[in-house]
C-alpha cells in the first residue's frame, strides 16, 4: 500500500461514509471499502479512470470538483478526502470550505514544495524542482499551484480551521523533525 493511502486508511473509522474528490482510478476508495467497510463516493473527471472505478464496483460521479459540492447537504459524509489534488484545484479555498461543510472531517494530502530536494534544485540549479512527489516538468505538470506545509498551516490559522491531526512523510516513511524541510508529503485532518 502507498504510504499516504496507509495513513488515510488508518484514520478512517469502520463503516464511514467517504467522499473522495478527484478519486482517480479509485485505488484509495477500494482500500477503504475493503479494510474499513466504508461507503464510498468518488468524483472524477477522467473517463478512463472512471471506467476503472465502475469495474471495481465503486460509485463515481463525472464532474469537476468545484462545481458539484454545493448540491450536497451539510454533513453528508464522515470524511471528505482531498488527496494529491490540492495543487490542481482552481478554487482551493472554496473547495476546502465546502468540504468542511459537507464532511465531519476533511483529509488533505499534498506534496510539500519546500522539501529539501526542491529547495536544493531551485537554489543551486535554478530549475523547477522535479522529485518523487513533484514528478513533472513545468510544461506538462497538471499542478497549477505549489504549496508548502508552512503555507498550509498559515492558511488554516487564518481561516480558523482546526488541524486535528498531521502526518509528515519523508522518503522512508513518517517523520516529525523539521517537516517543512524534510517531508515530501503532508496529510492533515481538518475540522471546523
Amino acid at each position, binding site marked *: 500500500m502507498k504510504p499516504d493511502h496507509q495513513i488515510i486508511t488508518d484514520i478512517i473509522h469502520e463503516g464511514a461514509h467517504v467522499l473522495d474528490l478527484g478519486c482517480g482510478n479509485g485505488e484509495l476508495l477500494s482500500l477503504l471499502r475493503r479494510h474499513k467497510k466504508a461507503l*464510498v463516493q468518488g468524483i472524477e473527471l477522467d473517463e478512463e479512470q472512471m471506467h476503472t472505478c*465502475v*469495474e471495481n*464496483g465503486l*460509485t463515481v460521479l*463525472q464532474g469537476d470538483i468545484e462545481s458539484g459540492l454545493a448540491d*450536497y*447537504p451539510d454533513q453528508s459524509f464522515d470524511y471528505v478526502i482531498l488527496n494529491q489534488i490540492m495543487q490542481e484545484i482552481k478554487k482551493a479555498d472554496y473547495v476546502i470550505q465546502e468540504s468542511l461543510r459537507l464532511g465531519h472531517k476533511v483529509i488533505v494530502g499534498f506534496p510539500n514544495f519546500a522539501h529539501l530536494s526542491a529547495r536544493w534544485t531551485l537554489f543551486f540549479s535554478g530549475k523547477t524542482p522535479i522529485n518523487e512527489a513533484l514528478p513533472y516538468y513545468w510544461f506538462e505538470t497538471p499542478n497549477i499551484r505549489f504549496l508548502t506545509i508552512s503555507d498550509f498551516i498559515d492558511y488554516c490559522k487564518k481561516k480558523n480551521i482546526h488541524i486535528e491531526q498531521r502526518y509528515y512523510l519523508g522518503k522512508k516513511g513518517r517523520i516529525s523533525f523539521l517537516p517543512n524541510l524534510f517531508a515530501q508529503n503532508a496529510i492533515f485532518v481538518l475540522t471546523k
Partner: protein
Amino acid sequence: MDITKKIEQLKKDSLGVIHTQYFTFAEPPHPLQLKSGRSIGPVTIAYETYGKLNAAKSNAILVCHALSGDAHAAGISADDKTPGWWDGLIGPGKALDTHQYFVICSNVIGGCKGSTGPSSINPETGKPYALDFPMITIADMVEAQRHLIDFFGIEKLLCVIGGSMGGMQTLQWASAYPDRVLSAIPIATALKHSPQQIAFNEVIRQSIMADPAWRKGFYYEHGQPENGLAVARMIGHITFMSDQSMEEKFSRRLKNDNLSFEFTDDFEVEGYLRYRGYNFVKRFDANSYLYITKALDYFDLSGAHFIPDVKITSVRFLIISFKTDWLYPSYQSQEIVRVLKRKHAFTTYFDLISTYGHDAFLIEIDDESRLIKNFLANLHQP
C-alpha cells in the same frame, strides 16, 4: 451483406427467434385506475423475455423503451424477422447477459405494438378507442408494468433500465417503488420535460392534427393521416441527431448531381427525412404518437416529486448522458444527480462522448455496454 446472411450472423451472437407474448389484466370490475382520474380495462401488455428467471426470482431486469419503441428489444422477431431495438446490449455475453439475467421488455400502454392503446378495440363500442382512449401518463405505463412484474411473482427487480422515455419510466419505477428496485439506469433522460421539449412535441402533435386525414382522431376506417404523421416523425428525427452527426452523415451532398431548382428533395438529408417519415407511417399509429408525446410532456418528477417521503434512498443509480444530446441535454441528467445527492444516494454518473446526439443511447453501444456490465456485476457489493 444480404439479408439472409445478416440474419445468420445475428443468430450467432443473438437470442435467435423471439415470440412476443401477451398478458391481460384489469378485467371488469377491476379496471386500471389512471392518473387522469379515468380508468381502463381490460388492459393487454405485449412483452418479450430473454434468459431464465432464477428460483429466487432475483435476477430480473426490466427494460423500458422509448417513444416509438416496442416490446421487441432483442433477438429476431418471429413476426417480421427484425432484430430488437437494443439487440447490441441484450443477449448471451452482452451487457444485459441473458446467461445471468432474466430480461423483460414490454410495450407501453397507449402504444400501438400490441399493448392496449388508442388503436385497440374499445370493448364498449366494438370499434377502436381513437380519442375516447383516456390520457396516459408515464406513471400509468409503470403501473401497468408493475402488474406484469407481479404476474411473474417478482418481488424486487435487480434493475430497471431505459433511455429517453424509457429513462423516465426507470425514474418513475425508482420513485414509486423504491423498495422493489435494487438499481436503476436512466439514460439520456430528464426528471421533467423542459419548455423546449414540450414545444417540439406540440409541433409534432399539431402536424398530425393539421392533416385533414386525422379526422379528429377517428380515422381508423379511412387509414392513417400519413402526411401529418410523416412530418411529425421528421421533426423527431432532427431532434434525435446532432449537428455533427448530420454533417458526417449527409453534409450538403445532393441526391442527384445537380440542383433541381424545384421543390423536390435535392439534398440527401431531405431524402433521409422523407424516407424515415414515410416508413414510420407503416409501423406506427398517429394517435399513439399523440398520446405518448403528451405523456412525455406531463412527466415531472422534479423537486419533491422524486422518491417522495424518502430522505435516504438505497436504490443504486447509474446515470448516463451523452455530450452531443441536445434533446435531453446532459444538464438534465446532472439535475437527477443533484436530487440524488440530496437523498444521500451513492450514484454513478457518466457524460459519455458521442457524436450521435440523442440517438447515441441506441447506437453508442460499446461504452454504454462496458459501464452497464460492470455496474450490474458489482451490485452485490455494499
